[in-house]
């Protein structure tokens, strides 16, 4: 009985290399499709997570235009919203988020920048996954003057009544030192959302390498 002719080591390595390249190409395509972006974009999947130590610069106050939550892979336009009857109601477009226009602008040294976005029970809204943020996660807010980067310091879930009780802490503009407050709803009971998720993040500054 004779077995198959042995293949030379260089030949096996070449074939293995082709399989690896082919498999990587297919995976890149799949990632691109699932991301909902252009098919061509799938060839541009970024590389490893190595992150250089960022350098931060001061940034003047500016109206927020866009928010990025890199760990959640969320980017959303920011539009100004006003309080009505002591309630903040995010933009009707659930893919946008609302900046309370009586709160601090990103870059302000005083006050708190309050941004709120919708959670949709069936998914797909800008802040559906806000509760997945953890301490040390980064949040970028792009303004007309640049990008302000924040680092998450606290994620809390509050009942509606507790949120009202802590109104001064969460919305007060006599405190905060320019921190970012992100708010959405959670705890859907089939009829209503019973609680709010509130994320606090302190400002780091404008990363030197950030592109607006």
């Amino acid at each position, binding site marked *: 009985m004779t077995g198959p002719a042995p293949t030379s080591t260089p030949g096996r390595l070449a074939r293995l290399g*082709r*399989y690896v*390249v*082919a498999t990587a*190409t*297919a995976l890149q*395509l799949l990632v*691109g*499709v699932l991301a909902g*972006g*252009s*098919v*061509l974009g799938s060839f541009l999947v970024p590389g490893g997570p190595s992150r250089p130590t960022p350098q931060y610069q001061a940034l003047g106050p500016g*109206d927020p*235009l866009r928010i990025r939550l890199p760990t959640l892979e969320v980017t959303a*336009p920011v*539009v*100004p919203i*006003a*309080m009505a*009857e*002591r*309630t*903040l*109601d*995010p933009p*009707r477009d*659930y893919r*946008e988020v609302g*900046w*309370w*226009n*009586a709160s*601090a*602008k990103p870059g*302000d040294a*005083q*006050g708190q920048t309050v941004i709120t*976005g*919708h*959670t*949709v*029970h*069936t998914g797909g*809204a800008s802040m559906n996954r806000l509760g997945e943020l953890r301490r040390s996660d980064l949040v970028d807010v792009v303004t007309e003057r640049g990008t302000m980067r924040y680092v998450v310091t606290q994620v809390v879930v509050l009942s509606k009544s507790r*949120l*009202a009780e802590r*109104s*001064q802490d969460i*919305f*007060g*503009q*006599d405190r905060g030192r320019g921190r970012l407050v992100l*708010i*959405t*709803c*959670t705890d*859907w009971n089939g009829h209503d*959302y019973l609680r*709010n998720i509130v994320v606090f993040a302190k400002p780091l500054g404008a990363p030197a390498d950030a592109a607006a």
Partner: protein
Amino acid sequence: MSSSLVVRTGAVVAATSLALMAAGPALAAEPVAQASATALTLSVAGNGTDSGRFTATHDGSAETTSGTNSPAVTALGGQTLTNLGTLAQDATTTVASGAGSSAACSGVAGEGATAVQAGDGTSCLVGGRTITLDAANVDLTNLEVADDDALRNVAPEVTSLILGPVSDGIRTVLDGLGNPGLYVDLGAVQAVCTATTSSAQGSANIANGAVYLQGPGVGRIDLVDLPLNPAPNTKVVTDLSGVLTTVQTGLDREFAALSSVPGLDAALAPLNLGLNTLVDQLKANVTDALGPQLAPVEQNLLDLTLNKQSRPASNAVEITALDLRVVPAAAQYVDADLLALTLGTVTCGPNARVAAPAAAPAQQPMVAGAGASSLPLAVTSGVEDLDSGPSPFTIAGLTGLVLAGTAAGVVGFRRSLRQ
């Protein structure tokens, strides 16, 4: 099909899908400004009539109206109102510097009044004679004086002897009220409102207003004088003391006739009950009986609210100049069908800014130490469901995206294997 064609097709389908999804929300935009006006609604015995509702809405680029702002009195089918001269209802919206605003006015006035356009937030009726509304008829003849304590120990034949003329007397008095009509006199009734993106306000005024009972036996008994410029949600209290006075006067006249009844004094002698004493007790009983029965009449005959205001939002208001109801609880006293009447109803707002995120102005942040009353207490950031499901185009686009991506992946995979 070449691989490049697959890739290009996939990219086009993806872009189309994303564009369609992005356009979706804009197709269901809310009005930037809105207002409405209804001069009159009337419901009698469940048969309603009204002047129609005139509405104006602005989508940011143009105003759209519906209904008529020139309602005709003759269009009010089946109404029993008299002397109703002029109906007025108008609403308008504008958008300036991206901000919506609206105004409305409506009301009624007598003959000779002139309707003017809404917009200045002050008036929409000028001049006109007094209107008289025959609101309902009142029947108080169900009042009884039977089972009174004063006659408990009186022999039945004596009771009959006394109650015959007394009951007849009361009946005469009450008949004398003659099914008096419930009337509302109004010089002019109107409500106006204005609203911006952040606030809404309005007012109502009623000229020469009065509510009264009137019948052939009692003449006119004033129940209410209506204030010219009522404060918001002014509840009008009905005063029926005039009815009681009228009934007592009639009783005095009838009791006076008892003294001429032959043998009455002799029949009362064994009880040591003089006629005058008995008459006084009966009069007291009538008052006692009538008073408590008038109290619920006072409380339930009319439910009249002037300048009725509600605020569905801080930048929206609904005002009804006069809201009159003869409520069901008064049915036992009121021999008339339930009547509900509203005059001069307007709504303004809520208004918004034209959606332009990049250009939307932002206020300066609050200064340190700003009052707690200016802080939010709630964030309504939860939605049960997406406003609408994906359109067929979106589904087709996503399907195409997936197919194209899969095809491109296969092509790329095979190309890699051939290398």
